[in-house]
């Protein structure tokens, strides 16, 4: 049994409440602002005298959010699919096989985690332009996949390394090829971790703002957060409307997280708690 003193329990809860507050405060603030009457100026976090949900309709239609959502969905789904498959393959090789140069390759991936996109954005822009891919979804997908794979490989390598060695050996003796071993044994074993990776990647890609701003120019290819930037530029004075736009953009990630929450937590705990 884990026994903690009363003071410790109080301190733990105080910290938890503090951080929950810090996380929730802006979200509640934006949501409350979004239900104020149009053109009003909410000054503090308090519910309006009467709720106006019409802002959402206005924002959706005037802000072209249907268009941005399509962009974000196409990019996010492609990025999740592409980077997950590549991360599984890379993590499998680095986590279960011994080969010359594996360490160098692994640290190269880690480098991808360390270097911020901002540091490479200029050369990236010229590369994408040289490929004739400026203002395309392909550009966003390629760049984002390469970014996500850095973390993905790191994550999946750890997940596959936590598989008991005997499981791999049993499958090898049973006659499974490397390919079969991966898809029939290892992927089902690491499924919670894979699902977690997919949720994280989806959130990351959906919220992608900086790359979309630099690499795309037309409304048609803007992602939702970048579209929100354009939208808020147009309606700077209408705080409730801009807030409604922000809420709309945040909804898909929240929905995905809520739907997959249980698996997500199981994935985060993989290896941390004995099964």
């Amino acid at each position, binding site marked *: 049994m884990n026994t903690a003193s009363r003071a410790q329990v109080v301190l733990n809860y105080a910290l938890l409440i503090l951080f929950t507050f810090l996380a929730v405060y802006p979200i509640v603030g934006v949501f409350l602002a979004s239900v104020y009457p149009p053109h009003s100026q909410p000054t503090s976090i308090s519910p309006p005298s009467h709720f106006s949900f019409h802002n959402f309709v206005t924002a959706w239609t005037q802000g072209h959010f249907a268009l941005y959502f399509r962009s974000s969905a196409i990019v996010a789904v492609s990025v999740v699919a592409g980077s997950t498959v590549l991360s599984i393959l890379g993590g499998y090789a680095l986590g279960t096989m011994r080969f010359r140069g594996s360490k160098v390759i692994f640290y190269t991936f880690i480098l991808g985690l360390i270097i911020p996109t901002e540091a490479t954005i200029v050369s990236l822009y010229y590369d994408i332009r040289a490929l004739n891919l400026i203002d395309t979804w392909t550009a966003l997908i390629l760049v984002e996949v390469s970014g996500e794979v850095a973390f993905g490989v790191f994550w999946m390598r750890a997940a596959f390394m936590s598989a008991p060695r*005997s499981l791999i*050996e*049993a499958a*090898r*003796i*049973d006659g*499974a090829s490397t390919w079969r071993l991966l898809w029939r044994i290892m992927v*089902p074993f690491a*499924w919670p971790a894979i699902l977690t990776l997919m949720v994280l990647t989806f959130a990351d890609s959906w919220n992608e703002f900086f790359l979309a701003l630099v690499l795309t120019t037309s409304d048609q290819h803007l992602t939702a957060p970048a579209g929100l930037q354009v939208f808020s530029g147009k309606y700077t004075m209408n705080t409730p409307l801009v807030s409604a736009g922000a809420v709309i953009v945040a909804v898909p990630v929240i929905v995905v997280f809520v739907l997959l929450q249980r698996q997500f937590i199981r994935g985060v705990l993989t290896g941390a708690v004995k099964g």
Partner: protein
Amino acid sequence: MAGVGYQGVTKRFGDVTALSEFSLEIADGEFVVLVGPSGSGKTTALRLVAGLEALSSGNVLIGGRVINRVAPKDRDIAMVFQDYALYPQMTVQQNLAFALKMRKSPRAEIEQRVLQAAATLGITELLRRKPRALSGGQRQRVALGRALVREPQVFLMDEPLSNLDAKLRVQTRSEIKRLQEQIGTTTIYVTHDQVEAMTMGDRVVVMRDGVLAQVGSPRELYEQPADMFVAGFIGSPAMSFTAVSATSNGSGRVTLSRGDLRLEAGAARELPAEVIMGVRPEHARVWDDGTRLIGPISGRVEYVEMLGRENLVGVAVTDESRLVIDADADFGPRPGDTIAVGIQPGRIYLFDPNTQKALGRI
């Protein structure tokens, strides 16, 4: 089915030699147990047959064929792992069928063989369950079943009972032995438990520091241990050792002495001046005039362990050594008491203190 051969097999992991010049012939259908403390190389020896490790030098043979470079799946072996290594997302039925599926056996044959293996092991009603819904004993059976359905040339078992509780272990031990006798598949079984080794093996291979210490039937190892290591490892409770001086009295008699301890017995061969005397608890008794025991040796009782059926009594016989004797359950001396002990004739094992090799029994 086929025999297995090791010919001068060495396995190194970096600077560590896990197995050194290991040679052994295992006959077709034989049940051989590799036993030894951890780090003795027994598991390495098993994994080399499975193809899970590549050997550094020497040859491993199955059915007379050198298989050093043959992939695990092509060696026609089945292995039972210590942690069972069941595929967690598959049902018991799928676990059993997996190897056959990989081999592309016809569906009807797979079904029939899975059912047959399940029936043999009494796990038919578990076929639809997943491993996490099984008890330790049930998982162990499924692991055995997975080996059984393949009908391999050789069974390899790596401490398959070590995760079971004591009672289940004893029960499963005899079941595995019976099963192996029934199907007659060559089996190599690794354990660190000498009781398991003695009760299951047709032959037992005692290993130490990557080297084969002795191989023989359980009785041979018990009666004629090659050295002090085997003598101490085989038999429970372990043999007690005492360093003594040996003086020949002529006419084939020898006196073993150290301090107050003095024993006289018949010795067929010449002994060095200093020897180590080994006595198994079951061969040492409380002294009783009139019995045919060698002795008496008097000593101070250090401890008494009650086992119910008998009492094990630790008796200090010299300054630095003690004899453990197997006494009747109603014999209950107190620690500190002085008692007299005798040893069955022919049951004093002697060893060379320098080489630790056996010098025979007197």
